[in-house]
């Protein structure tokens, strides 16, 4: 029995290996280019003659990485916190009340999840311009927040539905108010789901490209994806080792977060997407 699992493992890894190689290829390219000494970057060798870790520090200064990092953090935190605060009451209402328009709201949430920002980008640009908020990272954060609300309500509601009502009803019969029950009984139980939802919103906002590209026009307001893109687009000489170092640093934190959380996503999506 033990032996057959060993054989199965070898076969499984062999079958998966082409895909794994292709998946890891960009990471290898990113890392190896990022640590190459500058003169070697343009020579088509894989392995650098030495690992030049100072590239990261040089890149940090040369590309204004710190400022872009702060901008990214700002828009992502704004989007995440805002979306969760707005979505919790809505998901609670959807899960615990039956009201006229319940089904319509559900459909609206589904549909608005499907409408991507790219289709509306011209209208959004004009909306934001009309309010004089071009270049505003806050406006970008609020747009991310709005686009993530549907996903948040959807994820939270599917989790709220799994929490038995008896717990709350028990608290009510003890004389606790709805608000107190919500705070002391219900929300603590939902903390894991809230955390997972928030982190996925954060990753979405962290990685978003088109809205930031359209609204943020000057370098001091760039978020990380736009900053990295700006190092490549329309330049005569591209400092590829800086580009790759920046891409690696921008990617690593969310990749680690994601690797840690992906099994919750499998569960959450199975609940959310199909049910």
């Amino acid at each position, binding site marked *: 029995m033990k032996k057959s699992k060993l054989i199965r493992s070898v076969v*499984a*890894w062999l079958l998966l290996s082409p895909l794994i190689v292709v998946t890891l290829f960009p990471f290898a390219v990113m890392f190896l280019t990022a640590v190459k000494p500058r003169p070697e970057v*343009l020579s088509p*060798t894989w392995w650098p003659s030495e690992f030049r870790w100072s590239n990261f520090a040089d890149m940090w200064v040369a590309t204004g990485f710190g400022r872009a990092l702060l901008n990214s953090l700002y828009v992502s935190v704004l989007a995440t916190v805002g979306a969760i605060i707005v979505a919790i009451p*809505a998901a609670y209402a959807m899960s615990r009340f039956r009201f006229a328009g319940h089904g319509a709201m559900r459909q609206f949430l589904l549909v608005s999840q499907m409408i991507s920002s790219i289709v*509306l980008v011209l209208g959004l640009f004009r909306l934001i311009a009309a309010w004089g908020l071009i270049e505003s990272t806050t406006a970008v954060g609020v747009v991310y927040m709005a686009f993530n609300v549907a996903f948040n309500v959807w994820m939270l509601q599917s989790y709220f539905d799994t929490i038995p009502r008896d717990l709350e009803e028990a608290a009510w019969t003890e004389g606790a108010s709805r608000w107190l029950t919500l705070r002391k009984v219900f929300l603590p139980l939902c903390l894991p789901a809230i955390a997972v939802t928030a982190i996925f919103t954060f990753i979405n906002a962290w*990685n978003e490209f088109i809205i930031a590209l*359209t609204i943020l026009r000057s370098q001091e307001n760039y978020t990380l994806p736009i900053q990295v893109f700006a190092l490549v687009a329309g330049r005569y000489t591209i400092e590829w080792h800086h580009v790759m170092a920046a891409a690696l640093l921008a990617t690593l934190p969310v990749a680690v977060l994601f690797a840690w959380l992906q099994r919750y996503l499998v569960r959450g999506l199975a609940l959310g997407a*199909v049910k």
Partner: protein
Amino acid sequence: MHNRALPYLLILPSLFLAAVVIFWPVYDLVQISTHDVSRFGQLRDFSGLANFTALAGDPDFMAALWRTGLWTLSVVAGALILSIPVAMILNSDFYGRSLARVIILLPWAVSLTMTAVVWRWALNGESGMLNSALTGLGIIDQNIQWLASAGTAFPMQVLIGILVTVPFTVTIFLGGLSSIPDDLYEAAALEGASAWQQFRTITLPLLKPFINIAIVLNMIYVFNSFPIIWVMTQGGPANSTDILVTYLYKLAFRVGKLGEASAVSLVMFAILLVFTMIYVRLAMREREA
């Protein structure tokens, strides 16, 4: 009684936020697309469907429309064909399974922009690591200028599109596979069913709702996908890798043809609504079943 109003109060903020970023832009796009509009966005005379007919006569738009169809179908089909066996392997019990899962789902966490930037570098004609890897393996003997012509650039973009679509698709299928009880397979094995028969008569039918959902959701995501093509080629050379989203972006923010750009947006919006209706249908049917 305030309790009757409570649920409405609770959903109001999210409804409001979602509505502002959807309804207002859609209304605005309808306005622009049916008016003669200046480069700076001032509306002039009502022009009916002139912007839409201008699009229909624009060969670049028609080419982008067809290419979008090709792009969407090939990425979705490619990801589907690859994801079913991968999900089945990842669902079976073997050593290092969680590591394999993490590796295969990893591209999902990486921003498409970063992925596209890295591939743009890896596909660089002179110094790109793909050429040097392929040369090293003896597969090619002279460098290929991958991004210099649509003939090589677009297939590469499709392959990268497939690669970044696989994690999401595999995730959906893993959810589906874990809902199939093991005793079904045990019973089938007792009856002497081969692995292929088990796949065709148990796995595939029970996975079908998940496959449907994955197809529709992927169609929507891929149809809308902007960064891969924009970062790698900006739709070039000479619009030869443009899909609707990149063409729309050029019309709106490069050329300043706002009327036609909003017409493209509305055409895309209509196509998306059709996809979404199909999705809602499927999702609701699953709920009832």
